[in-house]
């Protein structure tokens, strides 16, 4: 469509020209790609290599800065995975911290209880430790995914507020359970978890979670998540099993929350049940909303911003949380569609 007004002096056709809907034969086949990221694996591989590269220099990075980066990375994993559920699929889950705690406890238990048996007293080589940690993370993720399945199957028939309440309840139940299981340290939590979490592992799992969510959403199958979000009845009527879509989103989301929990536990070296209460869930939900629901890049930026903000406000100690909260309120008032809700390039979503 082109609209020229006032007429340009060069225009041969007089005043102005309006062409609204070009006839289809005129429109060139744009040949726009089916798969927006042509070789997504290359990006994943590149990200892993970059992570490996950075981890080589991690000794030279300021430890405080490194801690912040790791914190950001863990939050990105949490936000990106929750975005699959709350953003793309349109289900309102408030239980992400619950899944995170399942993963954190399970991964920590694997490292604490199985680790010494497998690696021996000496602790094994770096490679053995790495593999051990990977196994612990995967175990944590799978455990959380299983929890997601158990919670999701009955509760995903519910919508909106009801689902939010059920997932909120789940998070609280999990917390109380961990508080009362002596084997897992009770209210004191687990201590002395080996500090396996490095910048490499965090960046690798950030890359993996972004890869999985992006690849899924940019496929014919994955468009079903967005369709479920838009209109469940219409989705069913074009043959989508919306219940299954919701469960898949929930389980994948829980898996990555679990791995994020595992990374968190091996980063802080200690976990307590209260560290995963519902304020943590809310924090992740805020990242998703602030980033713009169903917008991976926006959610990543929001996760970075919301992790950095409390750190940047550290100098004004006691006013920190007040300013943080105020900023959230202002941001929501000014940009309810999400701070970073923009589309880049050709409309791909």
């Amino acid at each position, binding site marked *: 469509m082109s609209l020229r007004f006032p007429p340009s002096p060069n225009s041969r056709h007089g005043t102005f020209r309006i062409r609204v*809907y070009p006839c289809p034969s005129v429109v060139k086949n744009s040949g726009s790609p089916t798969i927006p990221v042509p070789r997504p694996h290359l990006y994943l591989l590149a990200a892993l290599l970059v992570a490996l590269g950075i981890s080589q220099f991690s000794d030279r990075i300021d430890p405080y800065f490194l801690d912040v980066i790791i914190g950001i990375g863990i939050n990105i994993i949490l936000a990106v995975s929750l975005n699959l559920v709350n953003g793309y699929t349109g289900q309102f889950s408030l239980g992400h911290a619950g899944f995170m705690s399942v993963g954190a406890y399970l991964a920590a238990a694997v490292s604490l209880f199985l680790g010494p048996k497998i690696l021996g007293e000496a602790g094994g080589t770096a490679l053995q430790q790495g593999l051990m940690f990977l196994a612990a993370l995967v175990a944590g993720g799978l455990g959380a995914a299983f929890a997601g399945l158990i919670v999701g199957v009955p509760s995903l028939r519910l919508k909106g507020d009801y689902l939010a309440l059920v997932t909120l309840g789940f998070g609280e139940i999990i917390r109380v359970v961990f508080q009362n299981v002596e084997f897992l340290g009770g209210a004191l939590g687990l201590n002395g978890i080996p500090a396996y979490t490095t910048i490499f592992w965090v960046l690798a799992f950030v890359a993996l979670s972004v890869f999985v969510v992006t690849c*899924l959403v940019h496929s014919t199958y994955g468009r079903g998540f967005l369709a479920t979000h838009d209109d469940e009845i219409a989705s069913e009527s*074009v043959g989508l099993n919306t219940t299954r879509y919701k469960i898949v989103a929930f389980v994948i989301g829980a898996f990555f929350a679990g791995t994020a929990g595992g990374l968190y536990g091996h980063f802080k070296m200690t976990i307590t049940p209260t560290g995963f209460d519902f304020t943590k869930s809310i924090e992740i939900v805020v990242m998703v909303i602030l980033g713009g629901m169903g917008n991976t890049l926006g959610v990543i930026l929001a996760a970075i911003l919301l992790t950095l903000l409390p750190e940047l406000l550290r100098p004004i100690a006691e006013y920190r949380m007040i300013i943080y909260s105020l900023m959230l309120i202002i941001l929501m008032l000014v940009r309810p569609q999400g701070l970073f809700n923009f589309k880049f390039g050709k409309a791909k979503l």
Partner: protein
Amino acid sequence: MAAPLLQLDKATIRFGGLTAVNSVDFTVGEDELVGLIGPNGAGKTTVFNLMTGVYQPTDGTITFNGTPIAGLRVNEIVDLGIARTFQNIRLFGSLSVFDNVRVACNLHRATSPIQALIRGKSFRADEAAITKRAEELLDIFNLRRFRDAPSKSLPYGEQRRLEIVRCLATKPKLLLLDEPAAGMNPTEKIELVRLIQQVQKQFNLSILLVEHSMKVVMGVCQRIAVLDYGVKIAEGNPAQIQSDKKVIEAYLGEDHQTALSHH
């Protein structure tokens, strides 16, 4: 005669004390274009919802292509080959026109969801085939020009068309159209009649049309069934229905015999 494609046998549904659809016998044959009409609240949409699995019949059976559809999920019935449109258009508003059609192609996707992560050769071939098919469908209905526009930004008539295209992407044997002419002006209605006939011919399917507009129903249907208060009161070709006393009384009131002949 071969068994009909869709058969309602004494289909009944009660909501508490209200019998919304009462013992309706009704068939749609292969390649047939059937109309279902009736005054407001006659139970037309309820019959639709029975056929698509939204409601389960209290009594009676519904068979499609030899399969009883009782107890099947809505999406499973779509898989059998019944597709429907909605009275108040239900597109996926935030998705593009192309994606609206693409989502409906999921039913005939050749690769598993895991392939979306592996992205092997078969996945890319499958995605390319789906893209081609969706674009072809858009071409047929002259919607290709809107390919990447959000579907909710389309003009009303085009949204109706897109909804039909989306149905066709599921490769149905029977297409149910729920008041497609609602909110259309006379010119658009003529367009619609042409469209319905084109769809039926080009895609070799049966169509069941629920409609208020006499112009559309009489113009396009080979056979018409009339519902009133959940009961089928008449069935026949358009000429028979137009002259049916019971229909005229129930549907148009007593003094409106001219209305039908005036379409």
